[in-house]
């Protein structure tokens, strides 16, 4: 049955992706939920929660708040928390509860701005979509709200879009600076909302997560900043290329840009055929023939069994779904899938 998972667990949802983008920007982030979604985000999907403080709170909605649509109460609580913390903006991140009751985010944004006198954004997440969808929405809302002024281009300044732990498996910008230079601005990691405001200073953007494409397109359209996609070479990728893939047909399963980089590394080193598959967004313009979007575990099993692959490079948590596969399974952790950070050697990051 479609959407029935018997072997895998659900992946990081859109609200986690949105919070991943907002986490370090200095805002007060309100997850519009009853408490469980915030608990999941902070306890599982946001590994920085244990190393860097951030004003991420749950709205603490109760049934009558939802049924009666008590937005005023939410704004009251938000304003009170703004008075108790030092923040530069407020952000409301959606979950299934506001999705069911059709919360009017535009009204919520206006109410928050009026009550707190701070800029506000709302990210329309539903909990039914995946993390890169939430990243996409959060980046776009941020840019539309803060990146309105056109600054003079700074020569050599590169913007990195999509560097979140969920997409990259890294909690700090070090790996991105190492790959793209110390002057690179890593939006959402080691940078603040001021950097978002000055996004138009960048000469070029590099998108490392599929959740960053729409933002890069926005900046291209608004300020004429060109972009390309890439991903840094990670420790896990280096471990993968220590295997011999000569003459093999290989499938890489990850988020599209990490998988593309893995493919590039494999093809540089070995005479092999490589396809990419992903449970997340797959952009045709960055895909090759044979690449495929996977809607669920059944499709993964079918792709692997029908593709004739000698090796599958995939987060090892998915091995359960590939029990019948006789080829080689090689681990490439993806935090949004298994909660394993590349940064700590592929260990699960838990409270």
């Amino acid at each position: 049955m479609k959407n029935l998972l018997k072997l895998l667990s659900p992946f990081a949802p859109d609200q986690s992706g949105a919070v991943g983008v907002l986490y370090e920007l200095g805002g007060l982030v309100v997850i519009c939920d009853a408490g469980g979604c915030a608990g999941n985000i902070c306890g599982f999907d946001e590994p920085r929660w244990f190393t860097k403080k951030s004003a991420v709170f749950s709205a603490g909605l109760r049934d009558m708040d939802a049924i009666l649509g008590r937005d005023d109460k939410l704004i009251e609580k938000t304003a009170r928390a703004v008075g108790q913390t030092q923040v530069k903006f407020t952000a409301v991140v959606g979950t299934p509860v506001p999705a069911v009751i059709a919360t009017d985010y535009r009204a919520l944004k206006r109410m928050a701005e009026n009550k707190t006198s701070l800029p506000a954004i709302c990210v329309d997440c539903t909990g039914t979509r995946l993390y890169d969808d939430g990243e996409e929405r959060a980046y776009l809302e941020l840019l539309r709200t803060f990146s309105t002024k056109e600054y003079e281009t700074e020569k050599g300044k590169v913007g990195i879009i999509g560097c979140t732990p969920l997409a990259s498996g890294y909690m700090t910008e070090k790996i991105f600076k190492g790959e793209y230079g110390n002057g690179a601005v890593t939006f959402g990691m080691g940078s603040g909302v001021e950097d978002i405001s000055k996004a138009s200073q960048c000469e070029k953007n590099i998108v490392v997560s599929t959740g960053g494409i729409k933002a890069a397109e926005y900046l291209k359209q608004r300020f004429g900043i060109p972009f390309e996609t890439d991903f840094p070479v990670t420790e896990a990728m280096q471990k993968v290329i220590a295997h011999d893939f000569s003459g093999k047909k290989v499938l890489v399963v990850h988020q599209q840009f990490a998988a593309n980089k893995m493919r590039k590394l494999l093809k540089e080193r070995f005479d092999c055929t490589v396809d990419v598959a992903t449970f997340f967004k797959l952009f045709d313009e960055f895909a090759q023939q044979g690449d495929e979007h996977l809607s669920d575990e059944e499709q993964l099993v079918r792709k692997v069994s029908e593709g004739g692959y000698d090796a599958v490079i995939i987060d090892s948590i998915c091995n359960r779904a590939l029990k019948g596969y006789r080829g080689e399974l090689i681990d490439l952790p993806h935090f949004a899938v298994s909660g394993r950070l590349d940064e700590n050697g592929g260990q699960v990051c838990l409270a």
Partner: protein
Amino acid sequence: MNNAFYITAGELAQKGFENTPDELMSAKHLIYSSPATLAFNSPGAQGFGVKRAGLAIPGSVMLLVSPGCCGRNTTMQSRLCGYQDRFFYLLLDDTDIVTGRHLTKIPEAVKEVFEFCDKKPSAVMICITCVDALLGTDMERVSRKCEELAGVPVVPCYMYALTREKKLPPMAAVRKAVYSLLKPQKRHSDAMNILGFFAPLNDDSEIYELLTKAGIKHIREISRCEDLAQYEEMSQANFNLVLNSEARYAAQQMEETLGIPYIEMMRMYHIDKIHNQYMSLANAIGVTFDDSAHYEAAKKAIDDFRQKHGELNFAIGEFLNADSFELAWALLSYGFGVSEIYGTVGERNFVFVKAIARLSPETKIFSNLSPTMLDYEPSGKKIDACIGNDAGYYHAGVPTVDWNEERQPFGYAGLRLLLEQLDGALKGDAK
């Protein structure tokens, strides 16, 4: 600067429960799920949340029917706790959560799960979340349809975080759910059940000895049932002993449907209260208990500990196998200091706030969930030891006893074990 909100026990006792400041009432402010609180304030983060608790029926599996986000943490839970073969997910999309069309898919999904399992499950628990709470889903009706189609008992579990402060919050509802498959049968005067926890009491708890000496031969706990047959024997009980108030509704249900009456006790650390409760229990079931040896051993443990470590000052958290305020009161009455408590004040435990106020009016009471805890910095009197890993989070480097093991401490043995673990922590033993 320390902006974390607190109120002293003396001030709070004087104000009275009705005038508890908003900062201590989680419904009145945004909720801060700090690292200190995740273990208890996030679904299934540690211990038994609704999902894991729902699998207390031996041999059962769970189908979580929800948006993907609600099943996300189960990734870790299944892998780390050996539950990976017991969780299944029917993921809802945007249309499902607005129209409720997913309800028609559930029976087929249950059938597919049942057929998929090599070892056929004894029951399928269907766990639904906030979405269905808002849609007003009649899951009892859907469950009956599932039973008809799949030929297996199907039990609904409600992970409704939206109803946390209601009469039947999720952890109380799941306790009702896990006993709901019991069928009436002849009750036996020498059988009883302990309700309240999803893991057994520590084997050395004197409660087993006291009950056994009083003629009770079968003391049953759901977590000790190895199969469905043993689980079903629970309906032979002459009475239920409720050790956690969240099991009260389950006990009431069992009284109605199985005719089993219940008695409620509270886990306490005040030695005299432990004794009084045992005497009340003996009286209620018409027996006598001689707990003097256990009382004396616990008394000696307190005296030895105090002699060895002197007048220690504690910080007490709330992710504990204890009520934070009762434990604080007990420690104060033994002559120790408690300068900080991170806990949730309720009507039920306000009596302990008053008792603390009499012994230590300056004790500070914080709410773990207040946004102001983002800025908490230790200040004031030096803390010698923490109880609860949330307290330990605030006082990094201070000897800490987590006191949240799954096996449950109870009675004099629980008190002795706590002192033993504190002694170990103060000596620098690993947690």
